[in-house]
């Protein structure tokens, strides 16, 4: 399936060169047309943070096409063009976008400021994403890429730090609007901090402290922040396939802990979650790891805060917390 997807992506890239108009409607809105600061972001959380800071004084673009798979994303020619035209490029970290560093290497820093949003944050080991605090279950997961878990944004304190890092990038490129950007960033951080408090309050009261996620290991940061045990079906790469033993472990865990719910991933078919549900009777709730959002959600103006708000509600139900 992966090979197939690569072939499709390759063809997509080729087709975009030919059907340039079809794919480049976002760029035609014209970077050269205005003098506003041009910002390119890779993933949805970065996009959301950046557009909050930008207000109406900078133009922020989301590189990832809505609805597409973030981990296997590779920039298309048109994306590379957009990055080269921009003044500020924000990416998550080198484990999420391994292509980013190489891509911007050739662009002079006086023309483009590059922001690694994970600057100053401590990344978790990728292997730890599987199962927090239960080392016994770790044996055998040698298929993990030796690296770090890229999903830093799902810890709301990390998210606040990322807003600061991105703000620094804005200020470096556009010092004239420093106070405006700083005020926007502060307001946004306030909302994140408030949400973080509510997460802490709600998740502190749960009867159940195991988050069983039938998806790829995206929520390790969130789980660590709020003291929850996290179990996922696969590792941190989204297209990894689960193994029979892993599935059996998940089922066992649901039964042993008498979990009422298991959680499925956003954007993809909840097959694994449904299988666990059939096996154990645990109902399915959807968690949104916010890497990317659907086209409809983007059009509806859904924000990172909205998604995290919904996640909190799902977690409160799924982990049987007092609300």
């Amino acid at each position: 399936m992966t090979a197939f997807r690569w072939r499709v992506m390759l063809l997509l890239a080729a087709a975009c060169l030919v059907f340039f108009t079809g794919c480049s409607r976002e760029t035609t809105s014209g970077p050269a047309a205005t003098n506003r600061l041009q910002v390119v972001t890779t993933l949805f959380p970065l996009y959301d943070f950046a557009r909050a800071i930008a207000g109406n004084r900078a133009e922020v673009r989301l590189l990832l096409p809505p609805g597409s798979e973030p981990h296997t994303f590779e920039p298309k020619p048109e994306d590379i063009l957009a990055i080269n035209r921009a003044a500020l490029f924000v990416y998550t970290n080198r484990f999420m976008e391994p292509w980013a560093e190489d891509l911007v290497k050739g662009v002079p820093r006086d023309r483009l400021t590059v922001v690694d949003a994970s600057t100053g944050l401590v990344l978790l080991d990728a292997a730890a994403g599987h199962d927090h605090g239960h080392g016994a279950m770790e044996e055998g997961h040698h298929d993990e890429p030796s690296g770090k878990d890229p999903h830093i944004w799902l810890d709301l304190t990390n998210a606040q730090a990322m807003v600061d890092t991105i703000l620094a990038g804005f200020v470096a490129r556009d010092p004239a609007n420093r106070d405006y950007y700083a005020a926007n960033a502060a307001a946004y951080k306030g909302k994140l901090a408030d949400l973080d408090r509510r997460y802490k309050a709600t998740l502190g009261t749960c009867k159940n402290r195991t988050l069983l996620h039938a998806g790829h290991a995206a929520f390790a940061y969130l789980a660590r922040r709020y003291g929850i045990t996290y179990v996922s079906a696969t590792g941190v790469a989204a297209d990894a396939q689960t193994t029979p033993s892993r599935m059996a472990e998940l089922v066992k865990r649901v039964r042993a802990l008498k979990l009422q719910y298991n959680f499925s991933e956003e954007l993809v078919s909840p097959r694994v979650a449904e299988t666990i549900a059939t096996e154990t009777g645990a109902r399915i709730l959807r968690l949104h790891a916010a890497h990317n959002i659907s086209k409809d959600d983007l059009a509806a103006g859904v924000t990172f805060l909205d998604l995290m708000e919904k996640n909190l509600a799902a977690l409160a139900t799924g982990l049987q917390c007092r609300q």
Partner: protein
Amino acid sequence: MDIAEILSYGFMQRALLAGSLIAVLCAVLGCFLVLRRLSLIGDGLAHVTFGSVALALLLKFYAASALFVSLPVVMLCSLGILKLTERARVTGDAAIGIVSSLGIAIGVILASLGGGFTADLFSYLFGNILAISRAEVLLAVVLCATVLLLVTFFYHELVAITFNEELARISGIRTGRISSLLVLLTALTVVLAMKLVGIMLISALLILPSSAALQLARGFRTTLLLAALLGVIAVIGGTFASVMLNIPTGATIVLLNFMIFGLACFGKRLLAQE
């Protein structure tokens, strides 16, 4: 992990059952397809399915209902491949290449019209052998029964057109209809079975067990039976191997299939030397 314990899980039972049924199905169809030089049709039709799902999404058929669009489209395209090989003196693999690249290109255009690819497009299309639902097991049973019944019913006709189409024609067999039946059954299998176990496994199960059986068996009937047997061995053996080695099941089955094929080629050499 203990085999007896892992077998107590429903998802394992469903993987073994549905996987074996699909292996039999693919092995039997694969024998005819490989001999007719249409062995890549599985892969080709998967590409077409991709295009058809893009169409389905554009027409606002989401998730499972995308089948209502993709199934007829893929079946039509399988007939298109057949017509190309018949009319235009195009070889089977070239015809598959033409139709599948057209499928992909149309898919890419439709997807870009519809606002880009969505991850769910892939995930609804490509199943996972470890995540087969009860309804899907039933689907596999019905699919397997339908295809095997039709193959049994038209067995002599299918063998005849595979042996030599012109001879079949002057034996009073309506070769066009039988060929159409074969590719339509293949299209049906590709679209539905792919949803259960993923395209990688379907392509492998269409080509490898039948190719291995072709190395070893003497007669046609024995080739079909041996291919089915080898396919089932690969699914069951691969599933258990993936349990013991703790590696993804689909890929393990494909690998085991390949090893069986390699052994069959080796075995053929030994037989030839005798």
